[in-house]
């Protein structure tokens, strides 16, 4: 396994480094706000925080094109934000408001934006993998050179869907980047207790899929490997398996007793905080001043305040619309192409009008 060091990144400009830092801080602060709103009862249900893992989403998504597709898990606030779903729409979704990105139907675990080809937070572990294969198949059949990124946790690797999807994608040479966020735990089960082969990247070989492991706490490295992987994927070489080694700093969902890991282990990993890591690197290179960092933080703070205002001010879906969107309205069905498909097809060129 080659773990590219970020020192080997002469291609990374200062602006780009600052942008990556900004995106990670955005996710961190957004989720800290979510945690606060959860304890105030504004956000309900399950809330899985990504804190500690930001380098993975920010690095990998930086390597994506606008028309690439993303399939994510229930721990997807970070991916949704980086993808460009407005923070207000995400926050409104968590409030269950009608102006949320899934109209209040999905909540934290099911953020969707078909226009941005963000095909959802999926809360069935492993549930997204076969779907990603299908999205890539559609691209291949229609001769489009774009990729589908499928994000899942280490826990999902134990599901049959993981193995079946890798096999199918390799067999049909489909443009999928399988991105495993290996945070070493599936809820309370440590990877040594759920995988006979804990080196997830190794599993690619079984299916003839090229694979790489990368330090997920190093956003620059994640971006670099993702770019290389996606070059191959887009050029028709077939799928790629990327394992990002990372760690979640918080509980699995909002609360758990964390009986399954030691405080010391958590503290060790916190010393490798991806935000602190990049900040330090930019500092060393004299590319980030105190003032710039403060400006960045206040830009983020303003965006989050605005997001909360959008959520607070958003309307509730009328009860009369409870069964809306169980089926596609007949009026929008044309020549066998559903609205969602059309939306994703026209993703970049044409903004979708919701009827």
């Amino acid at each position, binding site marked *: 396994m080659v773990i590219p060091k970020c020192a080997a990144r002469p291609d990374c400009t200062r602006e780009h480094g600052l942008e990556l830092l900004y995106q990670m801080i955005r996710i961190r602060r957004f989720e800290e706000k979510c945690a606060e709103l959860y304890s105030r009862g504004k956000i*309900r*249900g*399950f809330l899985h925080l990504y804190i500690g893992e930001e380098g993975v989403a920010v690095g990998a998504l930086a390597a994506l094109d606008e028309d690439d597709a993303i399939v994510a898990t229930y721990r997807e606030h970070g991916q949704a934000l980086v993808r460009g779903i407005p923070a207000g729409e995400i926050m409104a979704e968590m409030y*269950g*408001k009608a102006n949320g990105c*899934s109209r*209040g*139907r*999905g*909540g934290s*675990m*099911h953020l969707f934006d078909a226009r941005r080809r963000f095909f959802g937070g*999926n*809360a*069935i*572990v*492993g*549930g997204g993998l076969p779907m990603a294969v299908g999205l890539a198949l559609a691209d291949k059949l229609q001769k489009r050179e774009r990729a589908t990124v499928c994000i899942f946790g280490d*826990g*999902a690797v*134990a*599901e*049959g869907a993981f193995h079946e999807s890798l096999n199918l994608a390799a067999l049909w040479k489909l443009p999928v980047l399988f991105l495993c966020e290996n945070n070493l735990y*599936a*809820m*309370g*089960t*440590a990877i040594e*207790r*759920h*995988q006979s082969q804990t080196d997830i990247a190794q599993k690619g070989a079984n299916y003839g899929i090229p694979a790489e492991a990368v330090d997920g706490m190093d956003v620059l490295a994640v971006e670099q490997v993702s770019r290389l992987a996606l070059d191959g994927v887009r050029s028709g070489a077939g799928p790629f398996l990327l394992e990002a080694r990372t760690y979640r700093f918080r509980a699995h969902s909002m609360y*758990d*007793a964390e*009986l*399954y890991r030691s405080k010391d282990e958590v503290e060790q990993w916190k010393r490798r905080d991806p935000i602190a890591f990049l900040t330090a690197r930019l500092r060393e290179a004299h590319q980030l001043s105190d003032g710039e960092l403060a400006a960045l933080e206040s830009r983020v703070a303003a965006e989050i305040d605005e997001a909360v205002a959008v959520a607070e001010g958003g309307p*509730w*879906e009328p*009860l009369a619309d*409870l*069964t809306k969107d*169980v089926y596609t309205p007949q009026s929008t069905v044309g020549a066998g192409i559903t609205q969602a498909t059309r939306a994703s097809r026209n993703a970049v060129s044409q903004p979708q009008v919701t009827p």
Partner: protein
Amino acid sequence: MTKMTYREAVRAGLREALQNDPQVFLMGEDVGRYGGSYACSKGFLDEFGPERIRDTPLSENSFMGAGIGAALGGMRPIVEIMTVNFSLLALDQVVNNAAALRHMSGGQVSVPLVVRMATGGGRQLAAQHSHSLEGWYAHVPGIKVVAPATIADARTMLGLALREPDPVFIFEHAMLYPQEGEFDETTPPSGLEGAAIRRPGRDVTLVTYGGSLGKCLAAAETLAPTGVACEVIDLRSLRPLDMDTVLQSVAKTHRAVIVDEGWRTGSLAGEISAQIMERGFYDLDAPVARVCSVEVPIPYAKHLEDAALPQPERIVSTIQELLASHD
């Protein structure tokens, strides 16, 4: 009398089963180190060790199948699936193996397997975590399906299930775990299968189970001062169904309302209604009514979720309409 929560009752039942029979073991996701996703097996890993409290990978179909195999091989496995929503990944092993093996082998083998899982909505967990699919399981011959709704049943049904030679599926409604009640250690447990009358009444029969029992009792309480006496039947077992108890009640009240958190179409409520029609048609003074979940994947927003699931108010108004239009 001991005061305990439903969760404590489930836990006590599990503990007793593990203590009583060395062949019994528990396996499922996070049953060990995490203590169970609903904390029903907290502390068990220390007490019974990792051989008997087995954390599994996220591989529902495989560990369900492993439970079936272990049962064939002489063990008494208890398989825990976190929620019925994830059990869909294991449905192949359930329907094609657990339920079919005995018959398909001409009676040569039995599968003494117990499977527990949480079911139901009400916690704003949206469409992939909130469904009530126990009615699908009740569709399948070869397995038994029970739904403990009371503290006593939560405490005793597991032990009863472990005496069965065939697969038993236990559905625990997720909203029940924190509920408190009394458990009388001296009362012998009712059998695994019969329905129970939880509240006697003469005007209308409410047929329900699991997480909807409390809602029916609340509706009955609301209606009592208006002079409407509801008889509330807790099915307890969804397969087999104790229709005799239901029909005896309908013969007395002449009206039936079925309350079932499953979706209406193709529901268990539909089956019960059909059986009342088949066997109790001439006892009815009014059409059978149903209060089920609205046909929508359960939404996240609270007001929408509340509206999608059966609620005491909807049960009350259904009963009132039934009485008003067919007095």
